[in-house]
């Protein structure tokens, strides 16, 4: 979906509604097409070389986890995927990030459009503090020129349903988003991201600030949403990576050490460094 701010958008059909829960645990297929290809990506903060020549392919409708110790570059790599890295002062990057065959760093690429196609949920829930629940979800639509109130209402509802928040807030849509619990706020942020109908969803430690019940709700949502989205999740929680992802990438000191199916990473990793990290023998 593309529009300038002057153009009124009159139709909108999120592709991720009506999730088939029965397919939640469908195994990864090897035939899945490559949605995103990270090719020889290097990223710097000033002189600090944070991501070192990383290449990996992400399959469509899969969940991929980035794991590794603090400072290994996993969040930086995530931010390279939707051009957020370049927004940091003194940050630079080289390499290619190919989305559906198109390099998002190509000169002709539109950074705002990339961020619409690749949504992001952050570590700490960050609803817009002055906005109601409804307006938090609708914010992106309005910024993108959607004016049709009924359409906005429908998308807000659908997004909240998909984020498993609708039943809890449907009578309080005008109340402030900040009045929700931490877990609800994170699902609100997820709904806000989903409202833009992204093709890829990046999640940066989305449950690290949540209690176990709120965390498991997010994990269940990840399983549902992957039917229609490609998801990349950064997590410090090894068990979470093992539970939710089909592919896992282990990073260390900016390098990609091992990238494989999650079942192989956790049962029989090929690299000794991976084995040491996932079994807590580091340091």
């Amino acid at each position: 979906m593309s529009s300038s701010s002057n153009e009124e958008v009159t139709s909108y059909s999120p592709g991720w509604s009506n999730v088939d829960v029965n397919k939640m645990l469908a195994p990864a297929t090897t035939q899945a097409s490559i949605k995103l290809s990270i090719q020889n990506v290097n990223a710097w903060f000033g002189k600090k070389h944070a991501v070192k020549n990383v290449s990996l392919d992400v399959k469509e409708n899969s969940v991929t986890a980035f794991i590794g110790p603090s400072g290994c570059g996993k969040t930086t790599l995530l931010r390279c995927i939707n051009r957020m890295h370049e927004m940091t002062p003194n940050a630079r990057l080289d390499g290619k990030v190919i989305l559906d065959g198109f390099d998002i760093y190509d000169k002709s690429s539109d950074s705002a459009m990339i961020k619409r196609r690749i949504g992001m949920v952050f570590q700490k829930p960050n609803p817009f503090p002055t906005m109601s629940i409804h307006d938090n979800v609708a914010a992106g639509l309005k910024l993108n020129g959607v004016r049709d109130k009924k359409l906005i209402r429908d998308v807000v509802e659908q997004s909240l349903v998909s984020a498993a928040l609708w039943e809890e807030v449907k009578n309080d849509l005008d109340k402030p988003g900040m009045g929700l619990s931490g877990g609800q706020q994170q699902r609100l942020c997820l709904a806000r991201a989903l409202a833009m109908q992204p093709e890829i969803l990046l999640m940066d430690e989305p449950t690290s600030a949540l209690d176990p019940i709120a965390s498991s709700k997010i994990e269940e949502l990840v399983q549902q949403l992957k039917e229609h989205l490609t998801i990349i999740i950064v997590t410090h929680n090894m068990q979470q990576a093992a539970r939710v992802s089909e592919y896992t990438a282990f990073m260390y000191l900016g390098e990609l050490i091992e990238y494989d199916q999650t079942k192989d990473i956790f049962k029989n990793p090929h690299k000794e460094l991976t084995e040491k990290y996932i079994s807590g023998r580091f340091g």
Partner: protein
Amino acid sequence: MPRLLDLGLDRIRNIITDMARLSESSVFSALEAYESESNAKKHIFEQSEKLRTLQDEVTDLAIELIARYQPVATDLRFIKSCMEIAYGYSRFGRYSYDIVDVLETLGPLSGCNKHAVSEMAITVRKMILLSVNALESRDKTAAPDLYQMDDTVDTLYRKYLRELVSNLSKNSSDEPRCYISNLLILRYLERISDHACYVGDSVYYIITGSSSPRR
């Protein structure tokens, strides 16, 4: 600094080592009792029961370690394999008891030709020692050797069966209890041989993360 999981893994490793020695002793004692016609039933029953209790202990501890520490990779493979190995050793104990039970039920067997059992026992003893040592030294090369010896055991078993059928059809004068005791004990030894192979497989799996090539 050891991980909390390491304390549990050490404990499970110690129980398995105890089981290895106990099961080895149990089989050797049963074969000795069979050869020397001595009464070892009570002693071997106690060993068999002890092995069964230790097997339960390994399973309980393994479940606890999985639930509390969510082990992965080599740790997880080790725990899974320990449960299988513990079962194998507990079967060694049970077959030892079955061997001495044959002696008590059908004995005395001093007049019987024990050559077939003695011949197979030589290989089975070697297999037990090899499997126990493979576990202690984490030797993945033991698995193919064990399977080779298992082939020898299977061949001896089938050979005895054919001879038995042939002798029975000739109305041999040998006592039926000799045939039956030999056949039963050979069968128990053949099963012990299989379990020794499974121990070798588990060691191979712990080290490589793959099933043994034979399986």
